[in-house]
């Protein structure tokens, strides 16, 4: 079983199986059980790929879409993607395990499996063309989740923002493929197109307005599954970081830092729990973006780590809101809802995941943010202060949500006969997620080391490209390299 192809085929087959079965006349609950089992199997398989050195050095290359010598990897597993595979599987497991029974139908289960498949495939490729195709399918899947008339407005908002983003991405990819692009003005234009596309997809200010709107009035579940994996960050890492100029990276990082503070500040004053989640997501994903656009190994490793921790913690936090909504309806943050005694596991999980989002000590987020600040402080000191402010505001926003959703005395008390507590499936999923976030926060070394290896590799590729660019500029200017 040392063939990586077999393992990867298995990974892809599991959500594929759920998609196929969802077309059959199967009841929802057995289908959900199949989805949960598949997600657990996928998580285990992904973890095995991550820890096995032989399985995570695999690539299938082609020259069909590029003029690069040796082609580009259409499918590959390396240090960077190895940790992203369990991340995608974990998000799927979280989705199918805790979504309330009344809220999940066969189409929904199919859509979650398809979204996971797309995320997985995205993390397995570094081909711009393949990423573009996957991005198109992903946006279409998200839009299809908003097709009911009640969400027509949000569907149009998403269609406009993500439509423009996809068009820009397509234009960038079109400029990028073909011979003789490297180190030319065409490549620079392509980078700007792809860069703006990634900023729109990640909801970076000023391209962010769709994010809170979709979280608040759209459908929260598909919004989490679409946003939490942060495919926009992956696009940036694979396509932009190796090629972009330092000025462009700095501009993106500055926009991202502004977004991190902006999102955290606005999350603090929201009256709707969903909208607060939207702004929190913006803030956290912007921190990831800022780390990725910083050309320091430590900051980049921090960014990669925050990507995983914030993605998991945020998805868990937003799922907690969904679980509460299933029991209480829309959640308003201007009042105290109470309920700690009824659902202590949910309350503790919410707090723990919220704190992980803010980079609280003892969670994985702390290590990530620490590295981010530590690495950036020399090359980009303003990042350190921005992270500090964003973290302080995010912490307040999370605690405000916690106090509002779980403390106080509810105005209307449910009848004691109603079972409003968590189901065991939900409780164990949240406990497992909290354990993972705290466990990896207390014993982070293997994961952090792997992120360092990944960031060193990314910056090595960038360095090679920058050197070749300098060389070609010199040649154009008539300067010959000295022997």
């Amino acid at each position, binding site marked *: 079983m040392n063939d990586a192809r077999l393992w990867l085929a298995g990974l892809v087959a599991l959500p594929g199986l759920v998609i196929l079965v969802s077309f059959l006349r199967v009841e929802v609950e057995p289908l959900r059980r199949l989805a949960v089992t598949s997600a657990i199997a996928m998580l285990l398989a992904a973890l095995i790929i991550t820890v096995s050195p032989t399985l995570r050095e695999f690539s299938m290359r082609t020259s069909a879409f590029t003029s690069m010598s040796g082609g580009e990897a259409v499918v590959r597993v390396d240090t960077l993607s190895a940790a992203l595979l369990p991340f995608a599987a974990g998000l799927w497991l979280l989705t199918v395990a805790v979504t309330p029974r009344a809220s999940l139908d066969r189409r929904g289960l199919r859509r979650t499996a398809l979204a996971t498949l797309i995320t997985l495939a995205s993390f397995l490729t570094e081909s711009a063309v393949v990423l573009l195709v996957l991005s198109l399918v992903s946006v279409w899947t998200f839009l299809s989740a908003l097709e009911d008339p009640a969400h027509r407005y949000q569907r149009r908002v998403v269609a406009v923002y993500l439509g423009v983003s996809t068009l820009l991405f397509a234009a960038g990819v079109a400029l990028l493929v073909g011979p003789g692009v490297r180190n030319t003005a065409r490549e620079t234009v392509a980078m700007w197109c792809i860069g703006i596309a990634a900023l729109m997809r990640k909801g970076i200010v000023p391209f962010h307005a769709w994010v809170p709107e979709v979280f608040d009035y759209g459908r929260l579940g598909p919004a989490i599954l679409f946003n939490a994996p942060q495919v926009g960050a992956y696009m940036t890492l694979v396509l932009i970081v190796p090629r972009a100029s330092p000025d462009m990276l700095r501009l993106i990082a500055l926009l991202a830092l502004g977004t991190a503070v902006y999102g955290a500040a606005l999350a603090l004053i929201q009256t709707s729990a969903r909208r607060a989640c939207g702004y929190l997501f913006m803030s956290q994903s912007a921190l990831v973006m800022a780390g990725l656009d910083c050309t320091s190994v430590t900051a980049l490793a921090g960014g990669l780590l925050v990507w995983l921790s914030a993605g998991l913690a945020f998805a868990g936090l937003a799922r907690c809101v969904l679980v509460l909504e299933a029991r209480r309806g829309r959640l308003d943050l201007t009042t105290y809802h109470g309920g700690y005694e009824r659902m202590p596991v949910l309350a503790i999980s919410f707090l723990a995941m919220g704190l992980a989002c803010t980079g609280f000590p003892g969670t994985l987020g702390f290590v990530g943010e620490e590295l981010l600040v530590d690495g950036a402080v020399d090359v980009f000191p303003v990042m350190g202060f921005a992270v500090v402010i964003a973290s302080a505001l995010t912490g307040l926003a999370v605690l405000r949500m916690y106090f509002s959703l779980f403390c*106080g005395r509810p105005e209307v008390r449910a009848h004691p006969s109603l079972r409003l507590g968590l189901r065991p499936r939900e409780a164990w999923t949240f406990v497992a997620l909290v354990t993972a976030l705290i466990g990896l926060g207390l014993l982070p070394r293997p994961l*952090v080391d792997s992120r*360092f290896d990944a960031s060193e590799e990314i910056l090595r590729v960038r360095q090679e490209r920058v050197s070749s660019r300098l060389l070609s500029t010199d040649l154009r200017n008539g300067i010959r390299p000295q022997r």
Partner: protein
Amino acid sequence: MTLGMPSIPLTVLVLIGVGSPVLLLAVLGVASVVNRPLPERWTGPLAASSMALACAALFVALTVYGITSAGTQLLSYGTWSTSHDGGIAIEFLVDRLSLAFAALSTVIAGVVSAFSNRYLHREAGYNRYFVLLALFVVGMLLVALAGNVAVLFIGWELVGLSSALLVAFFHERPAAVANAFRVISVYRISDAALLSAAVLLRHVAGTGSLALLFGGGAASPTALTTTNATIIALLLIVAVACKSALLPFSSWLPRAMEGPTPSSAVYYGSLSIHAGCFLLLRAAPLLEQAPAARLLAGMLGAVTALFAAITTRVQSDVKSSLAYASLTQVGLIVVEIAIGWYTIAFIHLAGHACFRLLQFLSAPNVLHDLHGLEEAMTDHSAADRGMVTVLTSDRARRRLFLIALERGFLDSTLDRVVVEPFNRSARLFARLDEWLCGAVLTSRRPAGVDGADRDE
């Protein structure tokens, strides 16, 4: 001051001292997360024995340190987060001051733990209380012994979070929750100021070692320019002012009295409120390098002491009265540090922490025995009234009384100057975001859409 070679017994003893509450936190925390809290008959003795072990280990460590007189030592327990550069090192800076404060913390926490075991008997949040107490003790020990900025910050954050969650201990009371949010808001400013100081330290000095701030080792604050030292010291003073409720951040202190009495005793009577003073004491070499910051600290301390001394006289409940009385002493301790009387400041700190702990813990008993004593507490002696009468006119006395009664109008000022402008501008941007969506589509969101529908 130079760093001595770390001795093995000291390394082991400090590890036991810190490890024991960490273990307690792990046991109680895991039980809470899986919703299987330990029964009271186990939790109480477990907490007491853990605190006793930590206390014994730290006192022995202090004795060993005193006997060997080895100078300041940096105990390193390896790099925790990564084997690459930039990992978080677990380092403790051990000297007489840090060991004494750590030992004092465990003594006080042990006393409070034993007291709470009976005081909170059959209380719904009994287990939660002990989890938060363990979290607090771990935080205090890390603050006391921190050898680098990361460890200090971890401790600082743990103290802040546990404090806010204990203020909201009776979480079915809206007032308690609202006050907890106020407390954590000020604590977050403190965290941000401390972390900003750390960021600046790393930027200008290229290190996160506290030896640079605290004057241990070859590195000393003289390695910093006066401007840099002043900026870092000012940030530290903001962090300290928020944590120790110095002016203008004093308004959270009476709000924090919503928590159970033992937690008020350990936080706002004895330990947490002194954490800021301790940090200032540790950073004394840095303050000496920054005279402007030192002067500011002294003035803050003096004004706070005066304000708290006046305010405490008109409080209508015993806990608030005691809290402001504590603040008076905290202000004086800060003045002592600013003057440079470090030994006196530490003796004052330790003595006051123990004395105030006793006062806070005995307050419920006194109230239980004598209903209406709260009023009596505000009925100060005739000598007091006489002195105030001699020194002030009627009108001034009335104004002073109003200021004291309204606790210096700090809350309303903070609301007007910080909270309201922040909320107003954030709301403006939120409306702008909504407008942006509408502008893109040249349409408005249909009314009555609430979004809480079928989701996956």
